[in-house]
């Protein structure tokens, strides 16, 4: 729980001022994009800090490339 609060708090402190400033300027589209990116970043950090076991992107790409035979054998 502490980890979730820390990560979400960290992201909110970093991103919220930007979003508020953009909305005040009337730039809602940018605010939505920034919020979306922040959401992805927070989700990524949470996955790492909560030790969720997911295969890394490189391992997925490696497995796929090896399956189609495009690699240099070690």
């Amino acid at each position, binding site marked *: 729980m502490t980890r979730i609060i820390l990560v979400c708090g960290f992201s909110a402190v970093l*991103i919220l001022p930007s979003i508020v400033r953009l909305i005040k300027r009337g730039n809602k589209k940018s605010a939505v994009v920034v919020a979306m990116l922040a959401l992805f970043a927070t989700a990524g950090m949470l996955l790492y800090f909560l030790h969720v076991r997911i295969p890394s992107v490189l391992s997925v790409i490696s497995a796929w490339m090896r399956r189609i035979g495009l690699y240099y054998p070690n």
Partner: protein
Amino acid sequence: MRNQSFTPRQLGVALAAFIFAANRFSSYYTETLRQDAWLSVLLGLLFFAPIFLLYVALAREFPGKGLFQINEIVFGKGIGKGITVLYLFFFILINSMNQRYVADFTVNTILPEMALAPLVFSMAIVFAWVLRCGLRATMRIGWFVLLFAAGALVLSYALLAKQMQPANFMPAFRHAPVRYLQSAHTNAIISLGDMLCFLPLLRYMQPGKKVLRPVIIGILSGAALTLLCVCQNILVLGVLEPYRLYPAYDVARLIRISDAFSRMEFLFTIPALLLFTLRVLFLFFAIVEGMGQLFGIEDRRPLLLPTVGLCAALTFLVVSGSGELKAFTMGVAPFFSGFFVLLLPLLTLTVFLVRRNRVQEVIGNNAECREEVSA
């Protein structure tokens, strides 16, 4: 990123630093060819020449336009945005990999007690701070970083002269021809091909100046510095070199002026960290440029912080460890990156040549619209 224009000379310097940074924290130059690794730098340059000509052709056909704008002009808005998403995926991936290289190196050598997460987030704060200073400021510090790194390399050559053994280059040219091809392919695509990230930034280059000469000089300077570094590694470490995780760092550790100056590895670490920071920053600029183009946001500054946060988070999710990173770079990356570095730009140029008249009509209409708006 308003008022971020830079000169072709600054671009050349940035390219030299970008290329020189590529081999700082990795040993993939020597994995395949070992004592002939110096040849892989030259062969890589030769292999990269047609790819470079492809980039030049694209930049010539669309002066004042970045890669993402070119995609939308050539393919139309829908497919163009799709291709921009592909490039963004590639840039974010190599950005995260590069950040992981720096983080792993720091944790393995300089700060062994430190956890990876605080280090990556500290780096992210530094990146965000420099990114806010803008592209022009980053291009300007290229000179300083490059000269500092080149000076440190020359100094380390002088200090290690006694430990260098030219016999380490022998036996030469003993590998199978396919190994030379593999090495050239790997170097051309990974260390030189990543400079694709400068194509989206070309729209900020000052118009009406000769571009090609400083760019070629920049690429050759970067390759020459890399060659010097690889030769130094072979001359000093010899047969042990391919078995080291950070050969350039191990070489710097052997420098010993007297008992008072026995820890001289800062001659490697400080320039290397600066070079890599610069490399990651240019990748960040390309990513922010792509995000702005994708979502139609003209002012790119609000995108900086979330992009840095996203890439920092992905640093952990993209790579699970140093071993995986090295295996990917050596085995899969030459083919995977080849799709983005060579095939996609080639496709763009081919489609442009086929639809040249239609594309030029679109460019003409856009220019007319802009003139009407400004009038």
